[in-house]
């Protein structure tokens, strides 16, 4: 075999690709499902924490800031491993999927809280005062006046951060989740050929390349005017 044929045989092997493509597609669906769950729960929790922080109860705010700092400082993989191998000892047994979901949700929650909070702070104080002067209570002022403006400010940084954390679903392969990378790695060890890995890389590109490009567009479209 010449070098080129060897390369094609290893990385673009049609027979191996046909054998393992269904597994990779299953992995792709699992990745999408996991990513959706993480995005929904992470953003929701982050928003809740930011709203609680806006209420300005000092002890609660310290607790929120500390929690956010913890999950911003810890590598996601460390969290996944800690939850997966550690929590069973505390009587809480999570699957690899559950552990990956929980870890990435906590990380996204922390980053989203920071970004939402920054957005809330960026809304001029006069907006709050005007809302209250019109007779709205704290929560309606927040919901109808401040949050719509804050979220608009938060969209570009939030988009990029969400994409980066969603890519962390690949870390699930370390705790035996058969998402794209997990499926590709087991395909590679069964077939003794790295073609499944090529398929996996292509699956990630199909999934994330449009998101990365859209993220760049969102960033220019929603940019906070300087």
């Amino acid at each position, binding site marked *: 075999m010449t070098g080129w044929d060897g390369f094609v045989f290893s990385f673009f092997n049609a027979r191996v690709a046909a054998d393992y493509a269904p597994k990779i597609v299953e992995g792709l669906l699992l990745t999408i499902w996991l990513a959706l769950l993480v995005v929904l729960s992470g953003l929701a929790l982050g928003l809740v924490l930011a709203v609680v922080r806006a209420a300005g109860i000092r002890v609660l705010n310290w607790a929120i800031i500390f929690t956010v700092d913890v999950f911003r400082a*810890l590598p996601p993989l460390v969290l996944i491993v800690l939850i997966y191998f550690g929590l069973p*000892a*505390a009587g809480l047994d999570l699957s690899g999927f559950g552990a990956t979901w929980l870890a990435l949700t906590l990380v996204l929650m922390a980053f989203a809280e920071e970004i939402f909070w920054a957005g809330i702070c960026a809304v001029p104080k006069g907006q709050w005062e005007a809302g209250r002067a019109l007779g709205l209570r704290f929560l309606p002022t927040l919901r109808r006046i401040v949050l719509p403006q804050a979220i608009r400010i938060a969209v570009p940084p939030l988009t990029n951060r969400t994409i*980066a954390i969603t890519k962390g679903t*690949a870390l699930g392969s370390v705790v035996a989740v058969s998402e794209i990378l997990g499926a590709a790695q087991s395909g590679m060890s069964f077939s003794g050929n*790295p073609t499944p890995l090529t398929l*996996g890389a292509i699956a*990630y590109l199909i999934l*994330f390349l449009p998101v990365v490009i859209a993220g760049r567009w969102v960033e220019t479209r929603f940019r906070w005017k300087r």
Partner: protein
Amino acid sequence: MNNFIEAFLNVEIAVAASPILWMGLVQTVLLALMTVPLGMIAGLILAVLSAQESRWVRWPLIGFVDFFRAIPPLVLLIFLYAGLPFAGLDLGAWGAVALGFLLNTGAYYAEILRAGIESVPKGQSEAARALGLRRWQVWIFIVLPQAVRNVLPDLVSNTLEVVKLTSIASVVAVPELLFQARQAQSVTYNATPILMAALAYFILLWPCVRLLSRLENRQIAGRR
């Protein structure tokens, strides 16, 4: 409660595991010290090149950067470590980690610095050229200092992410902090070493997170 302490805060195991965790921490710091400067230099080169007028230079570079931003770093690392040997190219664990991190972090730094360079008004470099500065002098004395200042919070944030990224080197058996903690955990069948590793990451990176919070708040306050 006793079970919990036994499983997470086991003093005996903590004492026994601390020497190898310390070795791991040293490796983590070395990995970060290798990756951050290399990634920054690669990102700077990519960013300056993609600021060129010619679209034949700019578009392939944007494609390159987007490609490596779309691929999860762990996928890239596994490909370099376990895939490339099939093509007769065995980089070893450290080589795969070095190349994978370089490509990944280089792409992220490039994207940030590109935004910074774009934020410097064109009049700045035109004025500098008109004053007789050479092209490289314009970059080094006029454009880059302002570009870096404008995106400083993003640069710090990405550097923090790079240090956290080094933990995935554990997957290809580079003996850094998380790898050593998992070794200790699998030998003792106890989660204390992993909690200690988490604590070490937190102590190492908390100052960085605090600094970043301040920078970001100041940036938002400045924009109002």
